């Protein structure tokens, strides 16, 4: 079985799983999604940009800065941004600050479970270069080695105003059709996976979490 799959490029090996668990997970390799014809895609991108559903997953201390966004003072809803409790339905993933190895594993899983097109905003210095945890034995330094990032918002922590600015930038990127992180991820899946597996020692999940 394993020998055959080696020759089949559209099947992932799922080596991390014990034999009996491989039946439980889908082992297909994801494919890049192609945009539609130009103007249709432009129109759809406009819709996507104005309906950004956040994944409600506060991965780090930066998650506290997201709460004020929902309040009357900052009111993210007026920009078409709304939280969503399941990755299946979300389109924006906000990495809320430092990511320990354990959290990174969950981030990867959730990211892969989101449907394309999907966008990532990394919040604060930690996901950029490790921030104050730059020499920690358990905190990653660069999130973009594990998942593709569309927008970085620097700061420790960035205030809600900067986050809104970050969303604005993301909207602009989407409208310009440049927010193709998902396709980039799939294109370089092997590189990302190698980086991920380097730090996640107990890889008890499939190679791609559908």
């Amino acid at each position, binding site marked *: 079985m394993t020998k055959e799959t080696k020759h089949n490029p559209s099947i992932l090996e799922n080596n991390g799983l014990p034999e009996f668990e491989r039946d439980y997970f889908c082992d297909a390799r994801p494919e890049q999604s192609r945009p539609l014809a130009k103007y249709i895609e432009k129109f759809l991108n406009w819709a996507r940009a104005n309906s950004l559903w956040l994944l409600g997953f506060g991965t780090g201390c930066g998650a506290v800065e997201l709460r004020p966004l929902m309040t009357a003072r900052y009111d993210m809803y007026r920009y078409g941004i709304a939280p969503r409790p399941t990755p299946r339905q979300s389109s924006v993933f906000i990495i809320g600050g430092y990511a*320990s*190895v*354990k959290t990174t*594993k969950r981030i990867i899983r959730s990211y892969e479970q989101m449907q394309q097109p999907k966008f990532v905003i990394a919040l604060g210095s930690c996901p*950029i*270069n*490790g921030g104050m945890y*730059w*020499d*920690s*034995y*358990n*905190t*990653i*330094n*660069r999130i973009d*080695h594990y998942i593709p990032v569309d927008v970085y918002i620097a700061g420790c922590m960035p205030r809600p105003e900067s986050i809104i600015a970050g969303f604005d930038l993301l909207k602009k990127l989407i409208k310009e059709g440049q927010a193709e992180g998902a396709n980039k991820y799939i294109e370089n899946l092997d590189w990302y996976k190698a*980086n991920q597996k*380097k*730090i*996640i*020692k*107990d*890889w008890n999940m499939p190679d791609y979490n559908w």
Partner: protein
Amino acid sequence: MKEIIQRLKQQFTISNVNQQRVDLTFLSVKKEQAVSLISYLRDFEKFSHLVFLTAVDRVEDIQFQLTYMLHNYNTHQDLGIRVLIDREKAEMASIHHLWKQAGTYQRELKEMFGIDFPGSPRVDESFILEGWDNIPPMRRDFDTKKYSEETYFPRPGRESHDPESYMKSKLYPEGDA
């Protein structure tokens, strides 16, 4: 407090009694007597609360120092019991039968220091270091910076400074004032 120490001395070999505050005392006890001492304190001296259990890596002495901090709600006394154990063969009797929550501390110590507590529930499961395959990270001979640089793709261009001299140079760029 003194009476308690007196009573303890009759039964156990305790040393280094050090009253740091009116309500905070430390003492050391041999590894073999530690658990019975703690049981005695809990059952007869009303130290009913385990405040924490922690470890210090005394790498120079090839020893770990465990500190059991107990609290007496009646007299509001804290009592720290220090136990030295061998670093090479880091193992200590578990006290999860006295306090259920001690199991959690012991799990953490196992994960971070590699101190084993045989019999403690789920002591081999990790809290955060899923699948850790290096020496336990809280041991002082573990070089966390080196590990981080080797593992986590440090972003090039990052500088690091000695905070004291760096702040000095920032605040007083013209030199000493």
